[in-house]
């Protein structure tokens, strides 16, 4: 009992230090976003703005269609997540519960697909979207993000479904719930953490995707934030203050989202650890 308080003090100190390290860059982002443009290139750099330019957060909306970019990002990430889930859940469930011919091949396909990065395929993706007449549409971005995140979701859900004892479902089935009923009433509720993990992973990587969006979209009102943000630095001009203001505007809602689902996340992330 005696060493307990010391241990807690130590843990708290380390914990808060770690938090500070993780937040420091974003604090700097915030401070930079409040500098007037002419203070940006002062050398050596200043810790705080000389003039606190809160107006940057008003002016930035005039420089880029941020609402639209944000809506595009949200829609692409949101719908891609739904599409991924709709495709991944049946596949993961079936391959976790049944042995069938081609199961190994399917799981291998999933693992191999996971290794392709959109970066190396941009031109091919663009050509494909041309053929499908989908260039400069959100649907193109949705499909690409859904497809490239599908493997991880199948994988993690497969692991999660496998870890749920078959007997649980059998019991519900015998109680007269029916196969599908058993699935919905027993298996799915238990799998919520796994599903949340798949959702978060897909959402985040779609939210982060940059190269495909840059290549496939051409009108500003169909470009996500990741494309809009670096456009504050062009060859001749650098509006770092706006770049960082926009970044923060984009980060905050996602962090809030995380705060709400953090609990589920921790349960779900073990899912891939197939037993």
């Amino acid at each position, binding site marked *: 009992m005696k060493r307990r308080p010391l241990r807690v003090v130590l843990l708290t100190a380390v914990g808060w230090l770690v938090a500070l390290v993780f937040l420091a860059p974003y604090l700097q982002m915030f401070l*930079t976003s409040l500098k007037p443009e002419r203070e940006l290139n002062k050398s050596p750099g200043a810790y705080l703005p000389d003039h606190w330019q809160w107006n940057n957060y008003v002016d930035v909306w005039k420089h880029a269609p941020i609402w639209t970019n944000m809506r595009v990002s949200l829609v692409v990430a949101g719908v891609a997540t739904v599409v991924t889930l709709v495709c991944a859940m049946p596949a993961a*469930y079936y391959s976790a519960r049944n042995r069938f011919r081609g199961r190994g091949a399917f799981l291998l396909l999933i*693992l191999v697909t996971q290794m392709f990065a959109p970066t190396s*395929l941009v031109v091919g993706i663009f*050509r494909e979207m041309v053929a499908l007449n989908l260039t400069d549409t959100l649907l193109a971005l949705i499909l690409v993000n859904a497809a490239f995140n599908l493997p991880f979701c199948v994988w993690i859900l497969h692991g999660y479904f496998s870890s749920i004892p078959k007997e649980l479902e059998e019991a519900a089935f015998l109680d007269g719930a029916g196969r599908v009923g058993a699935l919905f009433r027993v298996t799915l509720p238990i799998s919520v953490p796994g599903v949340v993990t798949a959702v978060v992973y897909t959402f985040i990587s779609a939210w982060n995707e940059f190269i495909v969006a840059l290549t496939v979209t051409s009108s500003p009102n169909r470009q996500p934030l990741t494309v809009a943000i670096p456009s504050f630095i062009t060859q001749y001009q650098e509006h770092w203050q706006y770049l960082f203001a926009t970044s923060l505007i984009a980060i905050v809602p996602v962090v809030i989202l995380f705060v709400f689902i953090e609990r589920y996340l921790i*349960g779900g992330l073990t899912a*891939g650890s197939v037993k």
Partner: protein
Amino acid sequence: MQHVAVKRGAGHPPAPRPSLLGRIGRALVPLLWLGPSIVLIAVVVLWPVIEMVRTSLLKFTSSGTSLGFHGTGDFTDLFAESDLVPVLLRTLVWVVGIVIVTMVLSLALGQLLNARFPGRRAVRWAIIVPWAASVLMTALIWRWMLDNYSGLINRVLLDLHVIDKPVNWLAHPHQAMVWMMAVAVFVSLPFTSFVILAGLQTIPADVYEAARVDGAGPLRTYFGITLPLLRPAVLIASIINVINVFNSFPIIWAMTGGGPAHATDTTTTYMYKLAFNDQHIGESGAMAVVNFLLVLVMVLVYLRAARWREEVR
């Protein structure tokens, strides 16, 4: 869609042996469940992959016009590039270094986040932030902080008298690589440490209870019980990290652009620059193919070492 049609088609002809039909039917059931996934992957992923392979076999002019089949010419050109070997070696250092450091730090962070102390939830939220911010934004703020003239890092180090004149961090290939790897670790930590944390939470408390009764010290408990039980979590986290780090583009792109020349390129940025800066489109296609084979080999070697088959059965 397709599988439904196939199934119905199989149903029409008069069946001499229902057992055969039944077997076909049973063989098609998986398609119902797996179909959407397979279609999505085939259309959206495999199509560009085929394009990629095709590109690597064609000859292109500098404008991007195709001049027809080029055989293995693009690969010969690629292997003749004097930058290729350094880029490959650098990629290996990049992947191995980042993944190992990330895993070690994440194991520690996982423990920290699993321990009880006031403000733990807030600390968890703080660690999530780099994951919520897109990698590109994080890379840009680091580039800004590392700026030679007005960067915060130089300012702090100057004020602490660690350095006596500003250091142009991102201009020197070695320093730049170290910083970029640090940033890559920084953005990989949230996901990885949460996987570890989740793994820790699946370990039942009575296992520790038993160890305590046996009189095992904290170190022995950790290496004897915790780490082995974390194996699945470590396995999945490291595979995902190997793939993501290998394919990582925005960090290098935003911070050094792979320069000066190709001194900080990994295969992914090199491939991009081959096509769009050096105007060798076919060679870039060849690099993409090589790139894929590399990550394939890396993951297979890792899985073999970790005996993944046993895990999945």
